[in-house]
């Protein structure tokens, strides 16, 4: 059958949707689903909040359209259906010397999802965003299939990349892959003792791939301490692959309680020797460390969790530090907190990346966490920064125009492509994105 009524949620499991979902296995059944009851395309629902939800309306799950249509081995251009996961592309192509130019922190994100959120990776400061490596997109909207690229239908391209699925269904895309040395990573890890040093170290890093893990429970002098990881692709013997583990049930509340998180973070920090260390890792261990545990989102228990991710301009380091202080004093942070340097690279009107520093912190859902996140959002807005919509479940619509200066232009383009609002998601309705023009 075409439709199945499903209740599903984003990765954080704080918001839920119920509605008919089609999961086409051929392009012709995708067209049939759109003709029958058009709704937004969704990928693997690795967005945390409600970007991938369509409550009470239809949605089209793209994961079964996941084939490689062609590969130009000289140019490194892969034509691929939108439901294929980036991790799968990496697994197949790294041994041949190619990687997706940009990879988010989970290999389960689909190509369509990576385009629609114009995702960034650990190499954003050098390589830019995912959309900057998209050569061409095949977009389906009603009975029309359009090919768009940075030079052809350029306006629609800019509204589709980072476009939250609002311009139609991305059926397939041509991706410019990045040449790599092989399928292992040479990784250097070193301890960083505090916030200011962290900023300095991130600025000074020459590595292609850089990411900072932060102990968001550390206060005072230790505020912002953490581990800086720097990586380069390499070749050599691949350590044996470990089997992935699964979290079978929702964890009880105490699993991520304050003392346990504090203890965990201290141990994690000391795991790296004082003088640092260099090791060889399989690529998936470096790029997708969390994917090794399936369904790790259940660790946060039934009530789910939220991730706050912002980016602030380079001159707003103080604002960032204040946010981190607030988080540390709240005692609400989980072990997952990440700090990265971002370059200016972005490909779409609604792309998140901008020059500066990006901070991402997970919180278990609670009234206190909601209040804290609202404060962090206000600080971000005042600092001229942005909140990442792929992670968002809570932002107030009033903050949006300042954070996303192309909002009204985007809204107009989306309304032109989709006048009936078929592709609205719960996120775009909540933030009234489509009525901003």
């Amino acid at each position: 059958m075409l439709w199945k009524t499903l209740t599903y949620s984003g990765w954080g499991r704080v918001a839920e949707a119920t509605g008919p979902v089609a999961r086409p296995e051929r392009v012709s059944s995708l067209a049939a689903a759109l003709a029958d009851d058009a709704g937004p395309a969704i990928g693997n629902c690795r967005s945390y909040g409600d970007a991938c939800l369509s409550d009470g309306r239809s949605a089209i799950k793209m994961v079964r359209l996941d084939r490689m249509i062609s590969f130009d081995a000289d140019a490194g251009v892969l034509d691929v259906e939108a439901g294929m996961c980036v991790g799968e592309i990496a697994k197949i192509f790294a041994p041949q010397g190619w990687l997706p130019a940009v990879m988010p922190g989970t290999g389960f994100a689909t190509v369509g999802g990576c385009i629609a959120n114009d995702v960034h990776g650990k190499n954003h400061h050098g390589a830019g965003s995912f959309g900057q490596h998209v050569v061409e997109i095949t977009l389906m909207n009603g009975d029309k299939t359009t090919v768009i690229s940075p030079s052809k239908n350029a306006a629609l391209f800019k509204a589709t990349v980072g476009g939250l699925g609002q311009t139609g269904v991305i059926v397939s895309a041509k991706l410019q892959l990045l040449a790599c040395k092989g399928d292992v990573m040479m990784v250097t890890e070193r301890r960083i003792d505090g916030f200011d040093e962290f900023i300095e170290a991130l600025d000074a890093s020459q590595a292609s791939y850089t990411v900072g893990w932060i102990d968001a429970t550390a206060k005072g002098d230790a505020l912002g301490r953490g581990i800086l990881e720097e990586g380069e692709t390499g070749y050599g013997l691949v350590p044996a692959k470990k089997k992935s583990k699964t979290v079978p049930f929702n964890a009880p509340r105490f699993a991520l309680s304050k003392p346990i998180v504090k203890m965990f973070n201290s141990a994690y920090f000391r795991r790296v020797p004082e003088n640092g260390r260099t090791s060889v890792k399989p690529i998936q261990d470096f790029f997708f460390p969390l994917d090794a545990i399936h369904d790790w989102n259940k660790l946060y228990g039934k009530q789910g969790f939220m991730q706050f991710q912002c980016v602030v301009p380079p001159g707003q380091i103080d604002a960032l530090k204040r946010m981190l202080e607030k988080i540390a004093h709240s005692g609400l942070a989980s072990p997952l907190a990440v700090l990265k340097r971002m370059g200016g690279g972005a490909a779409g009107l609604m792309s998140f990346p901008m020059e500066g520093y990006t901070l991402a912190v997970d919180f278990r859902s609670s009234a206190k966490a909601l209040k804290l996140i609202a404060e962090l959002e206000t600080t971000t807005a005042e600092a001229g920064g942005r909140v990442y919509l792929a992670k968002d479940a809570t932002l107030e619509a009033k903050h949006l125009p300042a954070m996303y200066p192309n909002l009204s232009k985007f809204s107009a383009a989306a309304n032109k492509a989709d006048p009936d609002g078929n592709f609205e998601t719960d996120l775009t309705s909540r933030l009234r994105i489509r009525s901003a023009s």
Partner: protein
Amino acid sequence: MTDNWIILGATSSMAKAFARAVSSEGARVFLAGRDLEDLRVSASDCVQRGAEAAEAMMFDARQQPGFKAIVDRVAQEDGMINVAVFVGSMPAQSDIDADPSLIDGVIKDSFTGPAAFLQTIAPEMEERGGGTVIGVGSVAGDRGRIGNYVYGSAKAGFHTYLSGLRNRLTRSGGHVVTVKPGFVDSAMTWGIEGMFLVAPPEKVATDLLRAVEKKKNVIYTPFFWAIIMGIITRIPERIFKKMSI
């Protein structure tokens, strides 16, 4: 030497998962089905995943005159010839009740079509002295039930055919695996009520490969369907006839 795999009904998700699995082992694959445009994409996907070569071919279980062309094409290649049959059709029993002429199509798609194809290719396999046939039947073929007994009887016929073919091909070094999948998470079961213990197609594909390697005769996939069907087939008819499962 490179193995050849002819995959009948290659657009199904189970077939796609199986084609990917043999492709990554370097096989030459022939993807046969009705939607050529779609199969061409699957063929390039197989090549990227390591297939020595991959070709899309027209196959319609209801058009027997076309079978010979596929056999002739594959016969040009060296190496063993293997066939995996994933074709079949399952209209709702209520549709069949309303229009009994649908029965012919179900029997052709699920039984006589693939049987005729296997009959056409069997001499070529015998000549090469080996090769494996995977015939995908169904747990529905183990016992007629009110919900889908037309489809079930077609599959039961196919099971019996496969057992005879196994008897025949064994003599020349060939082998036949009869596969009885339970519910598989595919377009066929998507949104159908009453599905439970639904298996991902990749899991089924892995089971198929293992069955080929170990020369299994009849397998249920996932394995627990053997237990479920063991129970269902043992229920006395006088009780079973009043049940609706």
